């Protein structure tokens, strides 16, 4: 933590962690109280032996009360300045730093999401979800004592991302919880949960008062947030002092992260436009009539998986990666790693054309054609001047870059018909030619990012088509 001595940092962290753990203890205490009062007490297991002839059961209420007590003890320890006890062990932090990188992060988050999806019936159980929820907060609290972690997470403009992650975890659980119940009900021939509360009620007072309470709560929350966390204000703007790293606002960092794999014209212009167009196209492409107005996964598995892949897996995890784990020179830094501007990472990525011509065929790269090399073509000078860039570009595209061009054209033009004839035959028949082609191309654009990631990681592939002369790299 720059500018703070170790002691000052400990003071700062413990003044944060004390209330933090107390809040977590209260959260678990309230959960226990709620379960007890609403008669949802469940015996999870029995203690061995018996007292007075009665077996002693450990109920969920007891467990969450114990968890609350653990947090209360943590509050006492961390709040009194003993932050070294209430933190992750050094070796674990080292291990996490050393084992993480863009590959582990991306593959790992995909694996986690896939496991959560496949075993959602298990993970949405309130007790399991509540345990994971507690672990997430505990992990955050234990990590906060690390100065490098604190530095990044507690940066005022990064706080919303931490909130976003927790909110998404909660709401994804809520939606999946209801979807799992609905899917079971539908399988049993029952209507979804949403159908049960079918009676009409008056908007005044039920809805109007709910809105009023929401507004007051939100205002209180905003004022609290505004008092607790000052808005950032760095030194005055200077066009000569470039900060390292220079980052866009956090909600665009998924796009900035794509710059690792794509040139700006793709990552900054084409793909965002495709995202917007794709979002707008969703209602016109999704021909599935089911799942309108209630949570379900089984009734609309395809659209669910595609959306979650795009939203949670691509958009959100890339934002988290770009904001919290990308440091100076856009290098990857582990969560407990110091952002060292001098960290050097070898960049020896190779273009496909270099692979083919130089390494494969042992030739030098073919150059571009130009009318100046072909004086025998009887064209007026003004016309050749106009046509020359076109000739250069296309001779590079179908000459030097032919392998990549064929691959990309095959991907975007030949693959959709193949999809229509094989895996997506049913889709094609129901959607018709135009709608199917639009959907196929949107899907292929979306899939191109993970494909390029894997090509980069496995083959150090830089570009499939590399025509830097015309800023055309793909």
């Amino acid at each position, binding site marked *: 933590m720059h500018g703070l001595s170790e002691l000052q940092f400990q003071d700062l962290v413990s003044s944060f962690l004390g209330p933090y753990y107390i809040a977590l203890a209260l959260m678990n205490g309230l959960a226990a109280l709620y379960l007890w009062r609403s008669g949802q007490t469940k015996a999870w297991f029995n203690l061995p032996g018996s007292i007075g002839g009665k077996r002693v059961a450990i109920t969920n209420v007891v467990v969450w009360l114990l968890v609350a007590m653990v947090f209360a003890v943590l509050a006492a320890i961390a709040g009194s300045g003993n932050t070294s006890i209430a933190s992750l062990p050094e070796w674990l932090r080292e291990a996490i730093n050393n084992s993480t990188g863009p590959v582990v992060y991306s593959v790992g988050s995909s694996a986690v999401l896939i496991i959560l999806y496949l075993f959602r019936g298990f993970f949405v159980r309130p007790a399991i979800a509540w345990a994971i929820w507690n672990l997430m907060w505990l992990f955050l609290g234990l990590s906060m004592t690390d100065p490098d972690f604190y530095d990044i997470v507690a940066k005022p403009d990064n706080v919303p991302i931490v909130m976003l992650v927790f909110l998404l975890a909660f709401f994804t659980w*809520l939606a999946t919880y209801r*979807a799992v119940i609905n899917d079971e009900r539908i399988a049993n021939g029952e209507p979804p949960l949403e159908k049960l509360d079918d009676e009409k009620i008056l908007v005044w007072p039920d809805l109007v008062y709910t809105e009023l309470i929401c507004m007051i709560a939100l205002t209180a929350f905003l004022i609290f947030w505004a008092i607790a966390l000052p808005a950032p204000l760095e030194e005055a703007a200077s066009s000569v002092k470039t900060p390292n790293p220079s980052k866009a606002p956090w909600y665009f960092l998924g796009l900035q992260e794509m710059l690792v794999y794509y040139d*700006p014209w793709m990552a900054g212009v084409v793909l965002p436009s495709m995202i917007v167009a794709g979002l*707008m196209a969703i209602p016109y492409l999704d021909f599935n009539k089911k799942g309108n*107005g209630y949570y379900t996964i089984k009734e609309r598995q395809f659209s669910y998986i595609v959306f979650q892949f795009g939203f949670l897996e691509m958009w959100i995890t890339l934002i988290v990666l770009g904001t919290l784990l990308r440091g100076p020179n856009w290098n990857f830094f582990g969560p407990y790693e110091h952002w060292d501007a001098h960290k050097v990472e070898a960049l020896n990525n190779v273009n496909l054309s270099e692979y083919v011509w130089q390494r494969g065929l042992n030739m030098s790269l073919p150059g571009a054609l130009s009318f100046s090399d072909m004086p025998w073509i009887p064209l007026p000078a003004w016309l050749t001047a106009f046509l020359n860039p076109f000739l250069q570009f296309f001779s590079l595209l179908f000459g030097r870059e032919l392998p990549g061009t064929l691959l990309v054209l095959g991907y975007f033009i030949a693959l959709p018909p193949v999809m229509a004839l094989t895996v997506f035959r049913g889709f094609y028949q129901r959607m018709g030619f135009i709608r199917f082609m639009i959907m196929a191309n949107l899907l292929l654009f979306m899939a191109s990012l993970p494909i390029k990631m894997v090509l980069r990681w496995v083959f150090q592939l830089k570009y499939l088509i590399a025509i830097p002369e015309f800023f055309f790299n793909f």
Partner: protein
Amino acid sequence: MPDLGETIRESQIWKSIFRHPMPVDRRNRIVVMLTNFFLHLHPVSIKKQGIALSYTWCMGGVTFFLFLVETVTGVLLMFYYRPTVEWAYTDIQMLRDVHSLGILREIHRWGAHAMVITVWLHMYRVFLTGSYKPPREFNWVVGVFLLLLTLLLSFTGYLLPWDQLAVWAITVGSNMARATPFLGHEGPGQQLLTLGGVDMITNASDARFALLGAREVGEETLNRFYILHCIAIPLGVALLLAIHFWRVRKDGGISGPL
């Protein structure tokens, strides 16, 4: 001695504003929704599940409320802020250090971040409940435009404090426009657009220039972003919000199983 509240409610002024008795019985609870301008956005009655927080998450409403918070705090902040290179940074410093209402800036900034998050959560909920399906397809499209405008509002506002964070975030973000195909001076196809051997798309005529009003983030950009942030985009949002809410009602109210 007549009751004061009753006196007020019996007065001509009160009755000219509220043309019905207090909404304590069924009839007047219906009438209040129909006769009040602010409430007539709502239907009179609604299915019980339509207001269950576990179904709606209230995120659309929260987003709208945050938009109102941003409007009010934004107008107040405009009193204290001059969008010039000379004054912008100092004015924000004054808000932080001197003015007693400086906390407005915090509310405005955190409200803006929160609004981006709640828009996403709202769309997340709408997707997961399949609420974009017929007959609500077009309202989803309007919603995507609102998402775009929300991001642009946040993006243009990011520049206004005129500190290092602001200027470089906007520089990084707007550098992308340089690479717009055909329309950016470092975009693919730019070389193909020439007129008599002279490039038509240069750093003084490309998409980035249109966004920044200059070759670099500077005085012109600050002015441009200020106007976009305070006038142009909010007006667009207000119009689309009106359409969005109106369509919610016209498309059959909040979604639910048929």
